[in-house]
């Protein structure tokens, strides 16, 4: 198969990659892997791919560096892949750092049905945890691995104990220092003390305590820089804890500082806000926030979110909740966002297809993206809702310009059969999203515009009837109450 020389992934691009071969066993792949790591370490955004390697597998590596969160399309193109969708776990995880990397890997391991992928994810999680200091998480992961990956990945009790001991020592030291600072009453050192203590708790996985301590630094913040630092830390911890109300609060706090925020921090806050809205199902607001994120975000926020995620979340939420004008103005004509979309060409293609009414290919892209999105830690609950919304919007948009629509053609465009389409249309009509009627005999959909004049007469007469009824009832009741009060007045003396 020919190497594709620009970053765009076409559906037929990756032909021969056999997913049964384990990547680490193939020397050429290792070469490409190192290349990829080098390019990530240099933190350059790879927009387009330079064709330096002819090897198919290396193509795949480099192409993965373009759209890491997006799946390996070839295996889904039905080339006999074992188990179906195989996401490139390594490439995906390489987009993130810190605790979110571990959390995402564990999530994938828990959710994917594929044993190989699960083990891969657990292995990577294990390696990542060993670099850190969280012994609790370590025990968890080794328990999940259950010895399947060999002796190197079994529970190393000694390591865990050393880490725990070190932790105790450090904690004591920090707490002593903090009490020292408190007696000295120097704001800055108290703040640093609390901050260090919170960092310690964060490294050791005690997120609740970390949260508390970060919040405590608030009283000792003197400059806006301090406040922003505190807000960002709190946001990070809250996202991991899943407390998105705090996220929104602290984002607004950070934005209220009198000093002008630098662009990177601004982008970070936008992302955090977008994520909070996404989790609370406010898709329109989430889309707006993601779309306002500047390209300066780059790889600065990898301990929470990757730029590919911004593109995917923003693109899908926008598609599900914006109307056509907003979609054009804010997404298609948005230069900043274009940078993000380049990272995930599928999303760019699918938005373009939707806008140009090529619904079949749009829906196909969506289907292809779906399995990986279900493995995403923030998006998985919302995939179904967003997809149904997008599908409904597509159907409504399709029927909007026509007086009559042949249901057979429409079913072809939406890759469904006429009966299923009729059911979907029935639901949308009953919901008043489409003004039309179905001619079930000839299988045609006719647009119907309500006669305003008749409707007005009807409503007026109806209001009259209700008014009459209510006023009559009021008069009777008033009379009754009057009688009662007369009785009471009569009884009093």
């Amino acid at each position, binding site marked *: 198969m020919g190497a594709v020389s620009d970053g765009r992934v076409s559906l037929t691009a990756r032909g021969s990659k056999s997913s049964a071969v384990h990547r680490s066993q193939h020397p050429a792949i290792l070469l490409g892997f190192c290349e990829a790591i080098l390019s990530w370490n240099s933190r350059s955004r790879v927009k387009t791919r330079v064709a330096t390697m002819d090897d198919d597998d290396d193509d795949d590596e480099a192409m993965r560096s373009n759209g890491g969160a997006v799946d390996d399309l070839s295996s889904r193109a039905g080339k006999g892949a074992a188990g179906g969708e195989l996401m490139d776990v390594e490439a995906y995880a390489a987009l993130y750092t810190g605790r979110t990397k571990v959390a995402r890997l564990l999530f994938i391991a828990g959710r994917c049905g594929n044993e190989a992928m699960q083990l891969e994810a657990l292995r990577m999680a294990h390696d990542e945890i060993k670099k850190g200091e969280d012994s609790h998480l370590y025990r968890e992961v080794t328990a999940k691995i259950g010895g399947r990956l060999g002796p190197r990945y079994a529970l190393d009790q000694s390591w865990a104990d050393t880490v725990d001991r070190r932790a105790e020592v450090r904690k004591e030291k920090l707490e002593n220092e903090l009490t020292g600072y408190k007696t000295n009453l120097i704001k800055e050192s108290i703040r640093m003390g609390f901050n260090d203590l919170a960092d310690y708790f964060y490294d050791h996985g005690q997120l609740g305590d970390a949260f508390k301590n970060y919040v405590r630094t608030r009283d000792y913040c003197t400059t806006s820089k301090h406040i922003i630092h505190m807000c960002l830390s709190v946001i990070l911890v809250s996202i991991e804890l899943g407390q998105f109300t705090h996220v929104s609060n602290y984002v607004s706090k950070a934005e209220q500082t009198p000093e002008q925020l630098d662009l990177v921090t601004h982008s970070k806050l936008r992302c955090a806000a977008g994520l909070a809205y996404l989790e609370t199902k406010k898709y329109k607001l989430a889309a707006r926030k993601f779309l306002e994120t500047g390209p300066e975000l780059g790889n600065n926020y990898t301990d929470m979110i990757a730029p590919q995620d911004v593109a995917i979340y923003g693109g899908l939420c926008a598609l599900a909740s914006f109307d056509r004008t907003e979609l054009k103005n804010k997404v298609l004509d948005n230069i900043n966002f274009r940078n993000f979309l380049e990272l995930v060409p599928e999303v760019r293609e699918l938005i373009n297809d939707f806008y140009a009414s090529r619904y079949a290919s749009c829906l196909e892209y969506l289907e292809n993206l779906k399995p990986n999105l279900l493995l995403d830690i923030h998006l998985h609950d919302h995939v179904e809702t967003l997809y149904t919304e997008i599908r409904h919007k597509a159907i409504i948009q399709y029927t909007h310009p026509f007086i009559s629509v042949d249901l057979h053609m429409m079913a072809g465009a939406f890759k469904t059969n006429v009966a299923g389409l009729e059911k979907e*249309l*029935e639901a949308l*009509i*009953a919901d008043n999203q489409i003004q039309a*009627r*179905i*001619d*079930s*005999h*000839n299988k045609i959909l*006719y647009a119907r515009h309500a*006669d305003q*004049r*008749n409707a007005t*007469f009807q409503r007026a*007469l109806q209001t*009259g009837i209700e*008014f*009459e*009824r209510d*006023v*009559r*009832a*009021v*008069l*009777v*009741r*008033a*009379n*009754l*109450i009057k*009688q*009662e*009060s007369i009785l009471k*007045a009569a009884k009093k003396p």
Partner: protein
Amino acid sequence: MAMESVEAVVAHIQGLSGSQEEVAHLHALLKQSEDALRSQAARLGAFLHQLDPSVHTLGYLFLLEAYSSDPVCREQDGDFLLSIVEFINSCSAEQIRLAPEKFISVCKSFKDKVMQLQVPIQGIVPLRTAIRKLQVSSEQLTTLHSDYLLLCLLAKCYKAGLSILDDDIFEVDQPRDLFLYCYYGGMINIGLKSYRKAWECLHNVITAPMTTLNAIAVEAYKKYILVSIILNGQVPLFPKYTSSTAQRNLKSHTQPYIDLANCYATGTFAELEGCIQTNLEKFQSDSNLGLVKQVLSSLYKRNIQRLTQTYLTLSLQDIANAAQLKTPREAEMHVLQMIQDGEIFATINQKDGMVSFHEDPEQYKTCGMIEHIDSSIHRLMALSQKLGSLDEHMSCDPAYLTRIGKERPRFDFDEFDSVPHKFL
């Protein structure tokens, strides 16, 4: 005072039934001799013949009341009914209004007798005349209204009940009358299948001010639930002006009906039938089974009506599937019935087995429609004038003003004081 003999009373009556002052005088005399009359009830029959009901109405009334309150006389007299009917037909209205309780008690014993003899139909016309004579204005509710409606119900002469029901009632003497009146009114409307009016009547019963729960309200609520389902598909919440007694207690006494309403909301036919089966005896004992069966058939209608909103044409088979009917034949029958009742506008094409749904052909352009709109407007204007005058009247009421005056905020002297000081 000395017990006047019946003869003396009769003489008074005959003498003093001329002008109004005489009648007033007579009234006073009669009130004094009530006990005497009662004790001599058995003999009164003969004396009645000496009096002319149209002229000596008041006296006749007193005698008749004493006579009819004696159970023995009632049993024995074969002409009892006839004599009362005659009296009602020929009595004079002004004199009756001087002693309304007596009149009412006479009519009540008349009604009891008619029911006892199981000929309620005989009582309808006389009672109607009685109501018309007793009423000061057609807007007044009397105790006789509910008795009249009861007789109509028992005799199944619903249309006769309509003539009284069509009058709007605005003045009520006894709240208890209203409950019974509206309840029976609701039942008559249900019998005539005018569910909208039935709903109104029953709504009045349950939202009437009441301090203690009464059985009439409970029964009315049961029917109210069923009628609401047939009309609207759901039971509305209590409006704000319902008394708190009603809101708190009505639901606990009518649980099977509320279950039925919930079952209906879910929409499947089988569940609804199941629900009805489980509560069958309760429905029967409340004699609401007929209504419940109508609820069942209204489920089909509602499903079919929903289809008219989404489809232009639909095959009978699809209608049968959507409305959970068994065969297209049944669907056709239902659709036909609904077309005839004017609930939907459609044509059935038997050759293709298709039904085409149409829009409501009413264009609101005919003279008839314009007249209808015009008369509605006038009626509503009259009603709102009434409402306005009631409001004015109340805001001049001293009790109201005192109450307002007490609760208004402490003022400073610049503010306009809305309540004159004399009412404080």
